[in-house]
């Protein structure tokens, strides 16, 4: 458990007057699953976006392995290619088949030959039971299927780190399980994951580390047993209390 994949140091980010991230420190080891919990507006999504440089930080440093990716000289596209992201609203490309969605980055970022990329894509789709939908367009799929396809799209290039941004929040309750089961599988296989989530039971079950964000700072951090079982901070107890009520 040495060799951190991701290291955040004193991350600050403001939007106008809103100081959203106020000095976040976080270290994520290889094969570790980190769950970010916290109220809406606590900075979870913003933090995920800063990690793959979709938002530029105002201060601090982001290390991916031994590279300071917050250095302005670093090319963001190259960094993003090493990180997979799954969004709340799937964001599949509606004008492409499911298979083209999954293989797009392999073909156009990694420059892998189409036949090779499609073989890998079909393998992944087969794994989530969507091989027969490979040529279908995303709108023919259920929300759960679309989100699983989006996860497969994010891992098709074998990224070093997978970011999940409240990926079940837009789903009907009965579709949540199939998506979480896939994430659980990936976690068991050793994928390094940072996820913002409201699924406390899932976080408790799958995460190695739970990070409670409150108003842009890490208020509490520990194993699920610690954070959920015996939270040290009053605001953590208050936040979790609202979920249990």
């Amino acid at each position, binding site marked *: 458990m040495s060799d951190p994949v991701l290291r955040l140091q004193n991350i600050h980010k403001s939007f106008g007057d809103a100081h959203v991230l106020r000095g976040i420190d976080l270290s994520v080891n290889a094969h570790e699953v980190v769950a970010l919990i916290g109220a809406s507006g606590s900075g979870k999504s913003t933090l995920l976006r800063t990690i793959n440089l979709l938002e530029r930080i105002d201060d601090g440093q982001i290390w991916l392995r031994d590279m300071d990716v917050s250095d302005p000289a670093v090319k963001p596209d190259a960094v993003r290619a090493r990180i997979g992201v799954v969004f709340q609203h799937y964001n*599949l490309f*509606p004008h492409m088949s499911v298979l083209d969605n999954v293989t797009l980055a392999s073909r156009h*970022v990694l420059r892998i030959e189409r036949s090779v990329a499609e073989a890998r894509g079909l393998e992944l789709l087969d794994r989530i039971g969507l091989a027969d939908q490979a040529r279908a367009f995303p709108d023919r799929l259920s929300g759960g299927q679309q989100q699983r396809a989006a996860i497969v799209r994010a891992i098709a290039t074998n990224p070093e780190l997978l970011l999940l941004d409240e990926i079940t929040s837009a789903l009907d309750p009965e579709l949540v399980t199939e998506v979480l089961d896939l994430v659980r599988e990936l976690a068991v296989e050793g994928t390094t994951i940072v996820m913002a989530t409201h699924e406390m039971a899932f976080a408790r079950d799958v995460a190695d580390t739970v990070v409670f964000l409150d108003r842009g700072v890490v208020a509490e951090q520990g194993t699920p047993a610690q954070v959920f079982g015996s939270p040290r901070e009053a605001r953590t107890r208050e936040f979790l209390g609202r979920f249990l009520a």
Partner: protein
Amino acid sequence: MLIGLVSTLVFAALLWVTVVNTPGWARVQQTFFSPEAAWEALPRVWDGFLLNLRVLFFAVVGVLVVSVIIAGIRTLRGPVFFPLRALAAGYTDLFRGMPLIITLYLVGYGIPGLLGSSAPRIPLEVLGTVALILTYSAYVSEVFRAGIEAVHPSQRLAARALGLSHGASLRLVVMPQAVRKVTPALMNDFVAMQKDVGLISVLGAVDAVRAAQIETSHAFNYTPYVLAGLLFVLLALPMIRFTDWYTARLRAREQIGGIV
């Protein structure tokens, strides 16, 4: 269905009877709808029409290329690109405001003037094509820009998150969706351009309109104009039908404008 048919027939008959019974109909029929004059003018008007088709082809290709570039420039973000954006915005403002016929004159007489009398002569239809491209690219680039802006920002975000560059995101993710969204508007502009191709005749290029004019002055009969007009309508019809069919097919294949 039957009611519709009967009503259409009755309406058409009424219209026909009204027109035929106007006092000047006999004269108009002779000078505008003379089969002999049409037949006589057909070869030259047809030759002219083929020139319109060639001009149309190059104008469509040119407009597509120029307007996509202009739309792309106008959607660039960041202060570095301000001069380019301003230039593109100025271009669309200027040429959307300028009457096509003035652009035709300015390009048709201005460019040869700039090159001087010793330069080789540029064919009139080429100059006309350039003027058409200048004017219509201004319109079509605005249509493309509207389409690009109608694609939800989360699509661009997802593309960039995969590691695609700005250009690749635009080309692979944003533009294909933008084009689908604006296809009907786009086709409409091309139908409009299809008939404005006839305006190159003001430069003296012998297209269908110019050929009809020449024939008309020979025989003192306006039928060649009607003939040329009919050819343009026949040219437009398949395009109009194609637009409807294509739009319907897209809608059937995927949800357009749905929440992504």
